């Protein structure tokens, strides 16, 4: 091994990496995020936050009030919420054994220095909205006490920004396993994922470029292939290491600013430094060490895989493959290693495997279930396997990087099959699809971001304006609808700016055809609905289409019901169809009908961001897509979509009345049978189903050659996997 040369290459690459534009931009963003996160409380105080108040379950609050004013403030804070029951008690006698679910014991006491000390006792973690209210109460009481102590007006104290002294006691779970740690785990997982996306795509791109430009041949006259691989992987690892150091600096910077802002209260800064959780610190450190190793391993594997590819796009595809493996590992480590589950022996053994250990060991550490022996073993395995894997990889890398045979034979084949005109058409199509992929990716991203932002901002806003006039449920459905309308319209606008005018024009079918199509469509919808219910029951999942939304019951007001139907059936029906069918399918069909059909259905499935709903939505998407392609009339699919969503909602609304439900069921099945019969008659009339033959394998390859599209799809897949448990954090 030529150490000097390896060092030279590493030096050159690292310098180039950290002077890279994207690295600089990423760091600026990161610095901003870190500083903002560290000063979150300051910012929230500055903006005077509002809070969303949807309680799902009844909560019993027991108050121990030594101050005398707390009970009143708590009741004031929760308003006249029916689900909250408050009660005064004198002593907290709850232990692990006798604490009930949904019971919160809150104690307001004064310590020796006449400072307020709040203790919140509950079985498990409590809703953040509820928690925030307790914080508010504590802040108010503390301010009043301080004002009295100092002899100043309360308004002067109110500008104090730091949190009051609140102790959380969770009796049901180990105190080590707080929500914060789950959050830390979640955040670090996301960061590692982003880091891996960046390095894998970069290394894949670099190696493929070097192979294709044959610069590798020149490089190999100077260094051995194994030295070169080592240098390449080391430079990316060192870059990540530098990034980690930078991140730490940003973190400290953020905290320093926080301390400076709160300089009036040096004590609280000191106490916050003392209260740093050592298990979180050790978690972060171990995560960092393991991350370095992961980067090394993944970069090496990526380098070997991309050395075998014959085009940059192909190398990009291999990155997606590796990322999928990482995502799967994440999902497993997030799902399997949870505070409330005991880690099994098998998991301990699995966690010692390199790469897997990177995700598993820190996760186990943070819930306090990793043993020292396990950490030592996994680390030794990690260190020992590195040279072994490296040896194997460097041989494969050398074989791959000098092997042009595939490319040559492929190129020859293409040349034989295609004339110049065909080749030009192929190129135009390829570029067109790449643009199509970019546009969809962009639109989806815009939709997602708007949906999230509006979902955060609108509720409080709507409540302020409409709070006195409408019920809470109505307000929920109003902002729900507005969010959908705005985010979908913007996404549609994004797609339409890139679409040619001729594609935007729709067709209109006559009434008879329309009616027939709707009948057939309805038949399939009902069939799919029943199939879905059947499958869900078989699987035994507690999936419910309305699970994460407020269910409007038959006993609610008429306005509630109307707004509910608008919010769940009409608005999504119109806008999802306009976006997925008219915009995406309409745009994509010039590259192939089946291709566009499957892509649009896939996106239709993804935007539901729910696994069970998504699978069902995919088939719905196919159905609606076929109808749109056959008729070209968007009104039909909008109508069917509204019926589909409304059917579920109405059956929910009338569920209490057995008679009406039964009638609805019978009528729907009747129409469905008619629809399907009509379909069968149509097939017989036309002598079988007519399928135009179409090749679309190439198109998919082209589609995934756009990184924006790839990244957005991966983002949605991750969110879908995580949505069941973690969507609320987002």
């Amino acid at each position, binding site marked *: 091994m*030529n150490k*000097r*040369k390896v060092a*030279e*290459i590493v*030096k*050159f690459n690292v310098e*180039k990496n950290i002077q890279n534009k994207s690295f600089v931009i990423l760091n600026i963003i990161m610095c901003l995020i870190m500083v903002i996160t560290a000063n979150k409380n300051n910012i929230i105080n500055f903006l005077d936050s509002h809070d969303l108040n949807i309680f799902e379950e009844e909560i019993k609050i027991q108050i121990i009030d030594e101050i005398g004013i707390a009970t009143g403030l708590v009741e004031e804070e929760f308003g006249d919420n029916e689900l909250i029951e408050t009660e005064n008690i004198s002593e907290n006698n709850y232990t692990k054994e006798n604490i009930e679910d949904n019971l919160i014991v809150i104690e307001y006491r004064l310590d020796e220095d006449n400072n307020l000390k709040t203790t919140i006792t509950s079985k498990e973690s409590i809703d953040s909205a509820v928690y925030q209210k307790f914080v508010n109460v504590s802040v108010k009481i503390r301010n009043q006490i301080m004002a009295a102590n100092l002899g100043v007006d309360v308004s002067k104290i109110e500008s104090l920004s730091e949190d009051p002294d609140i102790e959380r006691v969770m009796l049901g779970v180990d105190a080590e396993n707080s929500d914060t740690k789950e959050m830390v785990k979640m955040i670090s997982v996301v960061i590692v994922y982003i880091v891996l996306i960046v390095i894998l795509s970069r290394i894949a791109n670099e190696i493929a*470029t*070097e192979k294709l*430009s*044959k*610069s*590798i*041949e*020149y*490089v*190999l*006259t*100077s*260094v051995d292939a194994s030295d070169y691989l080592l240098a390449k992987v080391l430079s990316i690892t060192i870059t990540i290491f530098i990034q980690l150091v930078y991140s730490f600096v940003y973190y400290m910077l953020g905290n320093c600013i926080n301390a400076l802002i709160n300089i009036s209260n040096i004590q609280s800064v000191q106490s916050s430094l003392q209260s740093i959780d050592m298990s979180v610190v050790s978690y972060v450190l171990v995560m960092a060490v393991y991350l370095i190793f992961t980067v090394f391993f993944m970069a090496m594997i990526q380098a070997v895989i991309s050395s075998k590819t014959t085009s940059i796009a192909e190398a990009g595809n291999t990155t997606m493959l590796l990322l999928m493996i990482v995502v799967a590992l994440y999902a497993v480590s997030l799902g399997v290693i949870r505070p409330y589950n005991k880690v099994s022996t098998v998991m301990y053994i699995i966690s010692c495997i390199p790469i897997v250990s990177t995700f598993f060991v820190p996760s186990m550490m943070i819930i306090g279930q990793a043993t020292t022996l396990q950490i030592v073993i996994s680390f030794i395995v990690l260190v020992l396997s590195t040279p072994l894997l490296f040896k194997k990889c460097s041989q494969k890398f050398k074989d791959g990087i*000098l092997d042009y045979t595939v490319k040559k034979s492929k190129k020859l084949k293409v040349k034989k099959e295609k004339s110049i005109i065909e080749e030009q058409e192929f190129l135009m199509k390829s570029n067109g699809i790449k643009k199509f992929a970019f546009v969809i990716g962009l639109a989806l991203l815009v939709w997602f971001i708007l949906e999230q932002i509006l979902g955060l901002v609108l509720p409080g806003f709507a409540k302020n304006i409409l709070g006195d006039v409408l019920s809470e449920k109505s307000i929920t459905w109003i902002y729900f609808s507005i969010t959908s309308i705005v985010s979908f319209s913007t996404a549609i606008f994004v797609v339409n700016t890139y679409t040619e005018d001729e594609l935007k024009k729709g067709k209109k079918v006559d009434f008879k055809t329309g009616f027939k199509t709707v009948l057939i469509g309805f038949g399939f919808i009902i069939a799919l609905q029943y199939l879905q219910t059947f499958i869900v029951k078989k699987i035994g999942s507690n999936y419910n289409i309305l699970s994460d939304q407020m269910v409007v019951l038959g006993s609610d007001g008429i306005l509630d019901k109307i707004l509910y139907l608008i919010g769940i059936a009409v608005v999504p029906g119109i806008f999802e169809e306009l976006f997925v069918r008219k915009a995406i399918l309409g745009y994509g069909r010039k590259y192939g009908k089946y291709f566009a059909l499957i892509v649009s259905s896939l996106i239709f499935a993804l935007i539901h961001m729910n696994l069970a709903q998504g699978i069902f939505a995919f088939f719905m998407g196919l159905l609606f897509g076929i109808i749109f392609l056959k008729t070209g009339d968007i009104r039909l699919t909008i109508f069917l979509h509204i019926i589909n969503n409304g059917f579920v909602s109405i059956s929910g609304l009338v569920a209490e009345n057995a008679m009406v439900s039964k009638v609805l069921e019978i009528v729907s099945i009747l129409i469905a049978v008619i629809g399907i019969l009509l379909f069968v008659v149509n097939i017989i009339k036309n002598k079988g189903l007519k399928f135009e033959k179409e090749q679309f394998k190439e198109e998919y390859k082209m589609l995934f050659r756009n990184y924006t599209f790839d990244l957005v799809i991966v983002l949605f897949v991750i969110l879908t996997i995580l949505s069941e448990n973690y969507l609320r954090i987002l």
Partner: protein
Amino acid sequence: MLEIKNLTKKFGENTAVNNISFNVENGKIYGLIGRNGAGKSTTFRMILGIIEPTEGSVLYDNKKIEGDISDKIGYLPEEGSLIPAYTVLELCEYYGALKLMKPEEIRERLLYWLEEFNVVEFLNKKIKDLSKGNKQKIQFIVSVLHDPDLIILDEPFSGLDPLSVEEIKRAVLKLREQGKTIIFSSHRMDHVEELCESVILLDKGNAILQGNLKELEESYEIDGQKGHNLNEIFIDKVGSLYE
């Protein structure tokens, strides 16, 4: 002196290069000629140690080509080996660093060669913005940047306009004057005739003719007649193999 003995390379069942031997004396220009796929590039790669020969050996000044020895060799690969996203300067900094050159030295020599080709303005241009001919010039500069003793040029004149060909030829001759050893491959006989002292003619991996160029031209017989140029010899020799 570069000594090549019984060099053979097999890719699976295909024999790319079959048992070829030749010596190149220091300070001479040696030409490899042959049709596309004759085994020229494979021979070069084996000389450079990029690929391992199946059989045979390559010695430069009685040493195996590896480690420090390989830094004394300059190489111009056939299809170009420039990284499109880099500027000329960055690229030379990178390739120079691979040869353990110092940054000042790289800059100085790069500027010297850019002036030699009258393209100083390329210094901060990106490779992908250059035309094919200009890329080839940069390629040539890269291969001689670290002042190698042995220079291997694989098809240095392909895709160049006549003027650029002249420029590179001039540079090659200048290098020979400085005592460098040069091996190059071509399928254009006129270039070989003009520059080389000795040639080897490859076909399907076999050396079918080799020796001093002048002697070959004087002694080769076609239909009983002597005194042919290389082009005629090539067509006669290779053409007859395909009959």
